[in-house]
């Protein structure tokens, strides 16, 4: 940074006299003269938690704090350089992108409901995303090993391994993944900002959320926080407050076990277009196999009987 003539040293004066740079949030770095922050630091300052490989992280999306601003959706697209391929007005409340897919990894739903005569209408917002299931259908179905569980507990499609076989798509009980048929014909979904986590930054959507509706952190701590929030809402007179994706609870049934990206909802999951009891495709395999085996045994038996009978 150049010295400026005649104006004194006006370039650097970040701190009031007598104070030194604090290690408290938000850090203040002059990138021109100092080193950038060490990895892991930023997430600690912005979310309250450092990012450490080996620990499981998740999102707690509290819909009661969501103001439907779509900052998450835009931040996601901007950080991940996803195309804006839906520039078309759709007359569906304020929702123009409609669903999660290969080019929309965060998607804010707008649920508009007319209430009884004389009552105010209802407008619910929910920022939806890949659930990063504890047992992920997509991961189990992927024949190439492109889909992996990362060192942060998230589910990631490795783009250089994916061959676009489509198996993951019906295997996701939430309809999160689609194929980008316009460009690389591969499957795409939320990466949990794997690149940001590696640099110690929380995912873009959580960082951009102005009301902390999207909270990032270690999954065990988020679950405790969510439980406390639900209880507080119950105490405030909102018995309808409920979690979606808590271990074994709604949204985490039939082998899904738990959602690392889980939600606080103010109504039945169906209202938000979320399956109440999602099912892992693998769960259908065992009964399917048994039925087939049984049918086979029966068939063999019947054939044998018929053959034996005919010999008589």
């Amino acid at each position, binding site marked *: 940074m*150049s010295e*400026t*003539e*005649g*104006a*004194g*040293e*006006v*370039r*650097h*004066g*970040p*701190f*009031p*006299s007598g*104070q030194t740079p*604090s290690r*408290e*949030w*938000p850090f*203040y770095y002059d990138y021109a003269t100092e080193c950038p922050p060490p990895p892991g630091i930023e997430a600690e300052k912005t979310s309250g938690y450092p990012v450490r490989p080996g620990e499981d992280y998740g999102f707690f999306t509290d819909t009661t*704090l969501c*103001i*439907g*601003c*779509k*900052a998450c*959706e*835009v931040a996601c*697209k*901007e950080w991940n350089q996803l*195309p*804006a*391929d*839906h*520039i*078309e*007005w*759709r*007359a569906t*409340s*304020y929702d*123009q*992108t409609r669903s999660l897919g290969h080019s929309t990894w965060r998607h804010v739903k707008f649920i*508009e*409901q*007319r*209430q009884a005569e004389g009552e*105010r*209408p*209802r*407008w*619910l*917002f929910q920022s939806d995303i890949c659930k990063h299931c504890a047992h992920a259908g997509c991961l189990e179905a992927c024949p190439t090993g492109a889909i992996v569980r990362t060192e942060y507990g998230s589910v990631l499609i490795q783009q250089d391994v994916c061959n676009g076989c489509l198996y993951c798509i019906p295997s996701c009980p939430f309809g999160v993944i689609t194929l980008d048929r316009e460009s690389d014909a591969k499957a795409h979904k939320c990466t949990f900002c794997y690149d940001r986590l590696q640099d110690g930054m929380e995912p873009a959507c959580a960082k951009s959320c*102005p*009301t*902390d509706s999207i909270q990032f952190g270690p999954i065990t701590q988020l679950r405790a926080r969510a439980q406390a929030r639900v209880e*507080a809402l119950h105490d*405030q007179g909102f018995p309808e407050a409920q979690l979606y994706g808590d271990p074994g609870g709604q949204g985490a049934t039939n082998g899904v076990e738990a959602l690392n990206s889980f939600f606080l909802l103010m109504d039945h999951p169906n209202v938000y277009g979320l399956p109440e009891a999602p099912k892992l495709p693998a769960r259908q395999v065992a009964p399917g196999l048994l039925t087939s085996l049984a049918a086979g045994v029966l068939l063999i038996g019947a054939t044998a009987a018929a053959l034996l009978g005919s010999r008589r």
Partner: protein
Amino acid sequence: MPGLGTSFGRGGATTAQWDLQNAQCIVIEGSSMAENHPVAYRFVMKAKERGATIIHVDPRFSRTSSLADLHVPIRPGSDIAWLGGLINYVLQNDLYFREYVIPYTNAASIVSEDFEDTEDLDGLFSGYDPEERRHQVDTWQYEGQPVPAPGYNPVQLSTQEHIPQTESLTEKPIPRDETLQHPRCVLQILKRHFARYTPEMVAKTCGIPEELFHQVARVLVENSGRERTTAWCYAVGWTQHTKGVQIIRAAAILQLLLGNIGRPGGGILALRGHATIQGSTDIPTLYDMLPTYLGQPSAQKKHEHLEEYIQTEQSPTGWWVNYPKYIVSLLKAWYGDAAREENEYCFDHLPRITGDHSQLPMTMAIHDGEIQGLFLMGQNPAVGGQHAGFIRKALASLDWMVVRDGFEHETAAFWYASPEVRRGEMDPKQIKTEVFLLPAALAGEKDGSFTNTHRLVQWHDKAVEAPGDARGEPWFMYHLGMRLRKLYAQDPEPESIRVRQLLDLTWSYPLEGERQEPVVESVLQEINGYHVTDRKPVQSFEDLQDDGSTACGGWLYCGVMPEPGVNLARNRLPDPVEGPGTHRNWGYAWPSNRRILYNRASADPDGKPWSEQKRLVWWDPEQGVWTGNDNPDFPREKAPDYRPDWSRNPRGMDAHPGTAPFIMIADGLGWLYAPSGLQDGPLPAHYEAVESPVRNPLYGQQISPTCQVYHRPENPIHAVDDPAYPYVVTSYRLTEHHTGGTMSRWIPWLAEMQPEAFVEISEELAAEKGIENGDWVTVYTARAETEMRALVTPRIQPLHLDGRTVHVVAMPWHYGYIGLAQGDVANDLCSLVTSPNISIHEAKAFTCNLRPGRRANAENTPVGHAGNGERNQRS
């Protein structure tokens, strides 16, 4: 701005955004805060998490309403009736905070017996001159004692006569009756004035059911007082009316009566429309103001000489006694060594205003050929201006126009892309306007500061170099100034004013880099001010002098750079979670880093906090100073028991008792009743919008008696209750776009989020008109027709007033004819009308009609023909 200014003394928000979390109740009205101030709304959500009640009063059920505990649907333009109802409820039931109101407001002050109220004159105040459409304010004064308005003195018919008399303010106190029984004391006048604002009248005027009115009134009162506070937030949904200033006044009166000003979790938060709108009012882009609220000299006032200017603008009592120090220091900052006592510090270099030169009159002057050239920087009036079609036509009268912006927007492209060109009303070959389109650097590409909605100055550094030829405004203005100076230096009359105005300017900012960009922090240093002899920065505006020994570009910003190289606007140190939460080391708030204004009122008259929970600033009798969690907005060593000694003709702050928290006001008290400063009345009275579907239910006077309706052939105005235009239309902004769209409609990710113009209508109106969700509809006024797609929604509810249904039509106004997200320009529908006081337009309440289907003869519709829509429908 004068709404807050005449009530409390300063035109800025009285509180800080983050203080909202200390409120027990927050009312948002005239704003969709969650949508347009999502980051500030964080603190509303924090308050809600802590159990506060959030109330949203708005014609639309918006994203803000969905997060609020209560939504109160209101007919656009009827806010004064509603607020008047709440004031009446508080007064009639004696629910005001008496211990606060008596010492801190002018409730006890006695008004001249010549004053006549709207009660006496069917909606007019005394002193009204119907020909001039103005008031003489003499009869509005206190008994035997005229007072000047704080700081901002609009031109009033009797200004010259009553201002010199204000010198007597130093001789005796203003007559008061602290029992509040005197029939002419302000409280009794208020009681009579608002008596007709009953809950029934509110229901009839606003469409708000009585039950809901009572519910809100109870919540407000329960959450005000010693232990609890209520905050109000508003934005341009209050401002953009022909009586916007009086709507804000009504809220100020209510907050004063409930004792919610100057206290944690209280106040009125003016939510500004852009990141630094407060900054552009402080260091103004306004025609009638010099930096930080000094008046622009006017040919209509006695402003020929500096001494006369000071006499008419200075107040002998209160903080504005310092006026001469601020104006002389400003002149020293601008004209340097050329500014000397013998030449009145170059006071003559300042141009005199000759009338209303605000945006709409300026546009008309352009249209009529009075203005030939235009610099347009960071504005897109072909979309954002009122009666935008008229503006686009006006631009064709210019010889030249310089546009500096990030993208080629609708205004820059008016000559080939506008609907007028497509309709054949303008021919690019015939348009003589030469357009110079210059690329501008965006915020991340330049150094600078934002002064946000709560007066907080925050510095930002350039992150990347602007691409190509794009440059920041400082670069442009500096080098333009240098080139002009070079040209004017060759003028054959080097001593003429036109030459001296330019050549005497201090224009020596240090430059840096290959692009020779001025160092913007050196401008901030100049605004902060310095001692002329040694160039050392001043520490505070208390250092400024009226003898030319100090220079200061904006006295309210004194202290932002108190040492060379120390820029407090760079501070980024928040308070820890435990508190105190005033965050005095985050940025720098004017004045003197005070976070909550008028915070003397956070303590009782004896200087003790009203309650433990609501402590902020208090008197420390041992040290003999005011102290606390915020910087006191009060003389630090002035004891609560100080009383002026009238035998010694006290001036300035000496004339205020130790209990008067509103230091900028001549009598130190919050003005429930404003004897000076406003052109339309000392108290708010409900008037209808210029275009309204109903007759004024409260008075014979239909519209604001002092608003300006421009009668021109291009500006037909709908009659009251015109069956051809039965619906009320209100415009608004979406989270996904920013104002005229230049910063958002060209960005693919934002364009995708709200890609096209639309109009929100109720299911009832849609059924009546045969419109399905997603259909095309044509919305029209006598000025224009626009086609948009219909969003049919239960969130828009028909209002029921007095047995009659009023439909509201709501449309976002961001869209235009180029960019990625497009649509017809909603502002084409608006009329050319302005408010008194601040000349703002009326975009939030006017009338329209609509029909299903696209614009008939889409590209050939003449603009400015009343009844056009009906004809097209029939044909």
